[in-house]
């Protein structure tokens, strides 16, 4: 399944936005424009559906409560609404729509409650709340039906999908020094500490085939890299990755992951994640600590990995290099426009000028550069070349 569109009301710094999403979506914005906030919508849905202690109340608590999540400049009635459409695949007509409005109890503890919850399957409404049961027992409104196994039978599919959403913000140091730090690994391992262990636990056949695919893609992106393999340290049994570089390099021969550059390591981690599962993958600024040559190859690399798994990827970025690939379509880019009083998320394909520029053969990076769109002047302020 893929998320095909998203409508937000009063979600953090998005007072009102509506965007379409594709198999590969790039969320582009300056610092503090709301990139993480946008990705957080999907993490929020995941937290509601999480099989371990999920639910609406806990998902909001994790974020500091209802008032932290609701847009500060919200007008009218203070509710939060997420309206999301899913499709079986990017070219399929079968669709799901999930719509959730959250508000606060008017008095008493002012707990967050469901104001409205609806599910549509192929445009037919199969859930509408509040319903008679909710009227009889308003206490039910502190939970969504999405999180209730007894109530989500008819749309369990989307609950599972949300529950399996993965968020990745790989920190190479954590991955590299996992042993030394021996820190607690958060259940979903967003920072990649458990990466090598996960590779190790993968059945040998899929482990080999995934590494082969990654190796083939890396050969094009990382000049001089020739082979990639998994091995165990003979003495300690610890899992390792090793790469073979072309012979003329200093330190010729096989290198283990502790000698990889931070960038190569991050890259391998995220390519692996693309092959690991089928639900939505969220990548937070994957350009960090990668050199510009590799960042330029990131978009096609992601596409290549998607060919096998069709896993949808939504990534946030503020890198011009990442958007320099001319194969990125305006339809795949969501721009966070901070020129107004609250941030507006828009599809690049809905902006006349950048759209025409990309169609004419410029890269998205070139088309949204500050000189092209003056009001986006800050977009790339932190990126230098």
């Amino acid at each position, binding site marked *: 399944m893929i998320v095909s569109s998203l409508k937000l009301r009063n979600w953090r710094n998005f007072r009102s936005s509506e965007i379409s999403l594709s198999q590969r979506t790039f969320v582009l914005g300056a610092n503090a424009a709301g990139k993480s906030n946008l990705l957080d919508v999907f993490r929020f849905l995941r937290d509601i559906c999480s099989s371990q202690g999920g639910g609406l109340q806990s998902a909001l608590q994790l974020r500091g409560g209802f008032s932290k999540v609701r847009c500060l400049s919200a007008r009218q009635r203070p509710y939060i609404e997420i309206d999301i459409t899913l499709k079986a695949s990017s070219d399929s007509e079968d669709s799901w729509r999930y719509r959730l409005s959250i508000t606060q109890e008017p008095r008493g503890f002012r707990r967050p409650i469901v104001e409205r919850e609806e599910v549509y399957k192929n445009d037919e409404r199969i859930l509408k709340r509040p319903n008679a049961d909710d009227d009889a027992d308003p206490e039910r409104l502190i939970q969504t039906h999405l999180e209730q196994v007894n109530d989500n039978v008819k749309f369990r599919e989307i609950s599972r999908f949300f529950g399996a959403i993965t968020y990745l913000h790989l920190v190479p140091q954590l991955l590299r020094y996992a042993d030394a730090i021996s820190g607690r690994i958060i259940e979903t391992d967003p920072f990649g500490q458990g990466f090598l262990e996960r590779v190790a636990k993968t059945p040998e056949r899929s482990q080999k085939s995934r590494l082969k695919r990654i190796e083939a893609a890396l050969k*094009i992106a990382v000049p001089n890299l020739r082979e990639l393999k998994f091995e165990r340290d003979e003495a300690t049994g610890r899992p390792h990755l090793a790469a073979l570089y072309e012979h003329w390099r200093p330190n010729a021969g096989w290198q283990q992951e502790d000698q990889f550059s931070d960038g190569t390591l991050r890259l391998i981690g995220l390519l692996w994640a693309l092959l690991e599962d089928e639900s939505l993958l969220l990548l937070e600024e994957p350009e960090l600590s990668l050199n510009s040559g590799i960042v330029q190859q990131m978009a096609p690399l992601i596409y290549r990995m998607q060919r096998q798994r069709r896993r949808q990827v939504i990534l946030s970025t503020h890198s011009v290099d990442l958007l320099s690939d001319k194969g990125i379509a305006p339809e795949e880019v969501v721009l966070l426009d901070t020129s107004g009083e609250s941030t507006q998320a828009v599809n690049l394909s809905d902006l006349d000028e950048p759209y025409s520029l*990309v169609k004419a053969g410029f*890269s998205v990076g070139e088309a949204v550069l500050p000189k092209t769109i003056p009001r986006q002047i800050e977009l790339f302020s932190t990126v230098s070349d």
Partner: protein
Amino acid sequence: MVLFSEDILLEQAARRIIASIAPNVFVGSTMGNKGYNYFAKSLPSIKRSLNGIKFVVFLDGDKLGQLCPIQQIHQWFGDPVPPNLCLRFAIHEVETWLICDRTNLANFLSVSPNVVPDLDDSVPDTKEVLLGVARKSRDRGVRDDMLPAANHSSAIGPAYNSRLTEFIQDHWDINEARGKSESLDRACRALEAFL
């Protein structure tokens, strides 16, 4: 030696050319790959570096306009051209150099050989020509990679560059192509003398 290219495909082509005519030459660092504007911005730094460092520069010729290559080079770098500089234009763009190896390209893109046009440096917009060839591919993977998806309005597909990189690295016969593209033949000869 520094290799400065306008984009990724030109860099890959340049690497192959250098490897084939001067196998022992080591490409120290590569720069550019950010389009023509980036080259224009880098001009002052390149000129300063030319005092001590050799630069091989590859650009697409579609930016030349009315000028001929050597006029343009004189405009940028003065006359005589600095001895540490070897700047070559692919006329009109690097795709011409690839299309000029008809047989291998046809195989690589899974089309019959007569689908790849028999052309030379006189034909402009050869990226369009190449996309047209890819559109006729029998291999769905080639079409998906090289052409924009149905509802997408980018000029090229999501793995256009990676596919052609693969072609350049593993299949492109430079000698075949330079028989038809004069700008490629001249680039090879100039590099032979330069390296």
